[in-house]
């Protein structure tokens, strides 16, 4: 951080830094959306109202193949389900009730949750949440528009390597989680294998959905290894790794 921001309270300073840095990747979303065949308004509506990056990328990633729209939406919603878990924990921390909660809910995403959980006090958590939400929302939507408009003017997006960039987005999103986490590495490998195996036989979009089974098939930790991937496991809750806390 430079000197001009040194006077701001830490949650505001850090929140602005994260918000602007993450928000800029709206450029990549705008580009990916138009490359996939969405119009500029469609890309912007997703950023304004879905406002959860991984889900947005997942939807346009599936649409890129043409068809499989329902599967694309289902994949986006499955990815969006983790925001529900963030919300469960944030509710205790933020204590926002009534109409304000309806507005706050829109901002429950990876970065706002990670920022709020990292604060030492509830007051700072609220400040962090609002700062990250506002800065990401503004920058993400602005850069979505710019990325979409710019890409619309490029004829052959493959010549600029934008197809490789779409895959790299997902790689970057998942990469930080995989570092040093054996179970999640196994889930990732199995998920990729299931998807590739399903590509020749399933409609576009469905292979990605099938891969979600990997999250249940890979046992969790030592206790899970004994119990296998079975759906029932009373008493396992205590040994569940708090991998969600470690997200950045």
């Amino acid at each position, binding site marked *: 951080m430079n000197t001009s921001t040194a006077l701001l309270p830490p949650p505001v300073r850090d929140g602005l830094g994260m918000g602007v840095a993450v928000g800029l990747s709206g450029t990549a979303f705008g580009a990916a959306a138009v490359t996939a065949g969405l119009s500029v308004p469609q890309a912007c509506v997703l950023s304004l109202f879905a406002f959860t990056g*991984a889900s947005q990328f997942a939807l346009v990633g599936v649409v890129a193949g043409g068809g499989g729209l329902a599967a694309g939406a289902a994949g986006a919603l499955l990815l969006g389900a983790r*925001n529900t878990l963030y919300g469960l924990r944030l509710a205790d921390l933020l204590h926002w009730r009534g109409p304000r909660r309806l507005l706050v809910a829109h901002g429950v995403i990876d970065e706002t949750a990670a920022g709020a959980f990292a604060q030492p006090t509830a007051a700072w958590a609220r400040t962090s949440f609002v700062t990250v939400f506002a800065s990401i929302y503004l920058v993400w939507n602005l850069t979505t528009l710019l990325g979409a408009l710019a890409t619309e003017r490029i004829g052959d997006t493959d010549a600029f390597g934008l197809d490789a960039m779409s895959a790299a987005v997902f790689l*970057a999103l998942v990469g930080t989680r995989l570092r040093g986490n054996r179970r999640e590495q196994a889930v990732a490998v199995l998920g990729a294998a299931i998807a590739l195996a399903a590509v020749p036989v399933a409609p576009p979009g469905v292979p990605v959905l099938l891969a979600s089974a990997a999250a249940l098939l890979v046992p969790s930790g030592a206790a899970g290894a004994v119990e296998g991937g079975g759906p029932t496991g009373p008493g396992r809750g205590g040994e569940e790794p708090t991998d969600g806390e470690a997200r950045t």
Partner: protein
Amino acid sequence: MTLWLVIIGTCAGCYVLKLAGLSAPRRLLDHPLVRRFAMTVPVALLAALIAVQTASDGGRELVFDPARIGGVAAAAVALLLRAPFLVVLAVAAATAAGLRLLGL
């Protein structure tokens, strides 16, 4: 038209999922299966998206595109070197574009 409906449905669904978390009873999070699935499923989905986007034509055809694979591999190296998000994306696009310029 259908695409618009899917987009609007996705937007509504994503919002409801966020609001549900803030409104639901907190003990839901204590259920180990809910927790395990919801916290790990993004990893499986994202890995599947990487694989499908890298090695398929978007339809039912598996393809081997050296430039695209090279771009994704370069992005992986950038990630291992702890490059920032946008640098990783730039490396992927530049590598793929460069390889295509070379005729791959």
